[in-house]
């Protein structure tokens, strides 16, 4: 008998089959991912999860007998009361006898449920959003330098001396040049000393002394360690992204914001979150809602709790400034902010908002995105020129080149993804030009 331990075999043997399956069912899975992502919260948006596909989409057909019609025989165990010739009313739903037969072909119309890993989910999600290679783009300068070992050099500071390498070089040079070893010299000395008492061996001793002299000369000519041998560890600097980021979600929750607008905003935040999550190890999310006053809330409250009041945008910026000072020092954190609003603001607040943004918020931020959400049903007759909102006008004045800020208008769900991509592409193009 043989016992073979297969537990250590490489796992993922089925990966190729899984990929084929995913490719096969791609359209269905994409749809399922899309549906399930709508019901997820921002933080879970990119987690692994189960999706369910309609069973017929990945069905493998075969010639089999239909589950209804014809004459069927059933043999059942556990008879208690029936005798030959009894009739039994047909159980509802057909098929089985005694209602316990179950669908003979277990396939049925059940959904096919299976789990997607996080990467698969995000890939499908981002692919669905048409954001190709977004992660590869250099968005903003969110990098620090770190030093990595990179081979050896012949110059450097003494602290970086690579001792092993140096001695190895020295050893090979000494062998190549045949520098006498210390033991050899010692041996010659010992032999001479042994012969010194013996008068008859004078000639032999002379010879040995000559050898010793030559060896000593060689030793002094060929150094134990030559400057040629010395090597230093070399370091290179690598840009390293700061490992943590914080995302501020600012939203106007005054009465004029409809559910539709909030949904648009949520989708945008989800995208930004996933995007940041791909780049940074830790992403914190801070939700700040505001009417005429602002407060930090949790996600659920942020999206779902209704609120009434006027609209003073600067309060949200104040709140953000406070939180940044308290918890998120710009030195240690990459700060991203996304503001969603329908564009209303109390007229007297515009100047203050502009000031705050220019002098306080933008210098601390990596990026500031302003999203003006409109009504889905907003149609304007041709020739009608829509007046820009207060906030839009204010921000347009601030938003000039060189400032890490972008602003877009979104009216429909389908615009979210293009706008998102545009927001992050623009910066990149400006840099490469």
């Amino acid at each position, binding site marked *: *008998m043989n016992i073979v331990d297969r537990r250590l075999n490489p796992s993922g043997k089925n990966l190729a089959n899984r990929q084929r399956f995913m490719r096969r069912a791609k359209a269905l899975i994409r749809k399922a991912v899309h549906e399930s992502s709508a019901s997820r919260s921002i933080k879970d948006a990119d987690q692994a999860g189960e999706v369910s596909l309609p069973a017929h989409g990945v069905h493998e057909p075969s010639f089999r007998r239909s589950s209804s019609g014809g004459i069927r025989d059933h043999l059942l165990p556990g008879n208690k009361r029936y005798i030959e010739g009894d009739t039994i009313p047909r159980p509802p739903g057909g098929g089985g006898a005694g209602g316990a037969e179950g669908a003979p072909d277990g396939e049925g119309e059940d959904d096919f449920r299976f789990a997607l890993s996080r990467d698969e989910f995000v890939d499908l999600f981002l692919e669905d959003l048409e954001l190709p290679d977004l992660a590869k783009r250099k968005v903003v300068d969110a990098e620090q330098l770190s030093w990595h070992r990179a081979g050896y050099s012949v110059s450097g500071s003494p602290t970086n001396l690579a001792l092993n390498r140096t001695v190895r070089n020295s050893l090979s040079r000494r062998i190549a040049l045949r520098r006498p070893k210390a033991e050899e010299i010692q041996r010659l000395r010992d032999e001479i000393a042994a012969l010194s008492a013996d008068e008859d061996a004078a000639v032999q001793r002379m010879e040995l002394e000559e050898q010793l002299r030559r060896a000593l000369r060689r030793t002094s000519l060929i150094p134990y360690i030559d400057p040629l041998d010395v090597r230093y560890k070399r370091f290179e600097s690598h840009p390293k992204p700061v490992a943590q980021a914080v995302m501020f979600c600012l939203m106007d929750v005054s009465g004029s914001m409809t559910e539709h607008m909030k949904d648009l905003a949520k989708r945008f935040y989800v995208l930004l979150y996933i995007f940041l999550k791909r780049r940074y190890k830790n992403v914190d999310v801070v939700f700040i809602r505001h009417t005429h006053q602002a407060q930090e809330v949790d996600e659920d409250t942020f999206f779902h709790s209704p609120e009434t009041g006027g609209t003073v945008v600067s309060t949200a910026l104040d709140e953000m400034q406070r939180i940044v000072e308290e918890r998120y020092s710009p030195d240690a954190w990459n700060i991203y902010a996304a503001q969603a609003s329908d564009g209303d603001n109390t007229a007297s607040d515009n100047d203050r908002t502009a000031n705050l943004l220019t002098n306080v918020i933008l210098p601390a931020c990596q990026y500031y995105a302003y999203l003006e959400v409109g009504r889905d049903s907003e149609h304007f007759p041709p020739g009608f020129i829509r007046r820009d909102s207060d906030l839009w006008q204010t921000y347009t004045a601030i938003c000039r080149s060189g400032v890490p800020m972008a602003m877009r208008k979104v009216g429909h769900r389908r615009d979210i993804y293009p706008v998102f991509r545009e927001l992050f592409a623009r910066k990149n193009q400006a840099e490469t030009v």
Partner: protein
Amino acid sequence: MSTTGIETQTELGGEAGRAEHPIFEGADWEFSTIQRAHEAIQRVALDELGLDVYPNQIEVIGAEQMLDAYSSIGMPLFYKHWSFGKHFARHEAMYRTGMQGLAYEIVINSNPCISYIMEENTATMQALVIAHAAFGHNHFFKNNYLFKQWTDADGILDYLEFARGFVMDCEERYGEAAVERLLDAAHALMSHGVHRYPRPRTINLRMEQDRQRERRLHDEQVFNDLWRTVPGKGAQRSDPSAEERRRALLQLPQENILYFLEKTAPRLAPWQREILRIVRHIAQYFYPQSQTKLMNEGCATYVHYEIMQRLHQKGLLTDGAYVEFLRSHTNVVFQPEFDDPRYSGINPYALGFAMMQDIQRICTEPTAEDEIWFPAIAGKGDAMAVLRDVWANYRDESFILQFLSPRLIRQFGLFHVMDDASEPTLSVEAIHDERGYRKIQRALARQYDVAWTAPDIQVVDVNLAGDRKLILHHRALNQITLDERDARHVLQHLADLWGYDVLMKEIDPTTESVLKEHAATPRSGLLGADGA
């Protein structure tokens, strides 16, 4: 002292002696434990039960590997196809959510016989699994006539290796999409890609010569010159019609659809024929398993029960381990009754095990009833010899027909219900009484007979010289037609492979009237055209 060792040995050898040390204690195991358990089990299985097995190879695997094995029908290596990924995903999801546990083992009909055992099993479970799979199933694989006839245990792993390599080569050469379409179509027809009856072997030159010589000898022996004078019928004997000749040439009617396509489909490329052949061979390899599920499990369960019991009697199993075994064993052979919410058909482990034990009982302590029903084996004494003979020479259908005893029918409370869609109610045809035993035997045997359970579909005609339309018949037993949607899909695949129109008629065999017709036209740009 050194004498104790000798004493232990003699005790082990003795009939009723109890060993001093059980093979293991507690739940933990290591490879030496498995080795010892295997040796002890082997002694019982070979010397006492007289089993005849392939050499064993036991492989320890984890949960993911077990799921892997599930998705490729238990085989250790297989070609790649999306459907295996699908099965893996389904099993994984069910396993993760706790809706389904994993099997304790999987065993492969190969030489050496490979048994996979799960690393999570306790030591007792490993012993049970070795007794069940590595000896029970193994013996059945090696000795049952169906497996002997249809499967090649020595060659299967090499063949799968070849199949995997060949499919991979084809994917490289002709593209994954083309191979995938072909495999989709082949898998759809897989259930109709088996030979159900052994075909005559092609005769080689020597056999041909022998046959010639025999015929000549026969002619010489029976030669009578008078026959020459009898007026001949030669002129009257008409040639078989062109149609008949054509059908004979194509070996029609043919129920192995994949075989027919491989040999006859006009537009397939050689590599496509080879892949059809691979799928067909694999289907054929699994064909005996579907016909012997009940016996196979019954045999393995009976063997593990016997072995574990004997090990415990010898003191090689601790009482704790034996109780753990019994608990697991009773779970396996549990048969819920028909009105139980857990009921999902007859449990092959339960019925199989009960029948094996019943045969043992009939051999050793027959009742008067048994003497009448089973005169050949009643009171014969050597139960193992009878069982070994049964395991070698029957399949589920014939086994039930022959050995389902009245006593067992009463014990299970079996009854037969007929469901005729044209009647308003179901009717009870037979119950466990004197008049019902034979009927129940026959009806139950039919449920295990592939000829009754699988739809009977045959290629009946094709005019290769004409429009090449392929005609199939489904003889709809009991007027149960095919599942409409599936039939349409499969027929589409069939048309794609064939390259021309396909027509299937569903025929009621009692009246020869056509119940339904399905037709399919090949999609352009698919298989046939690709290969041409």
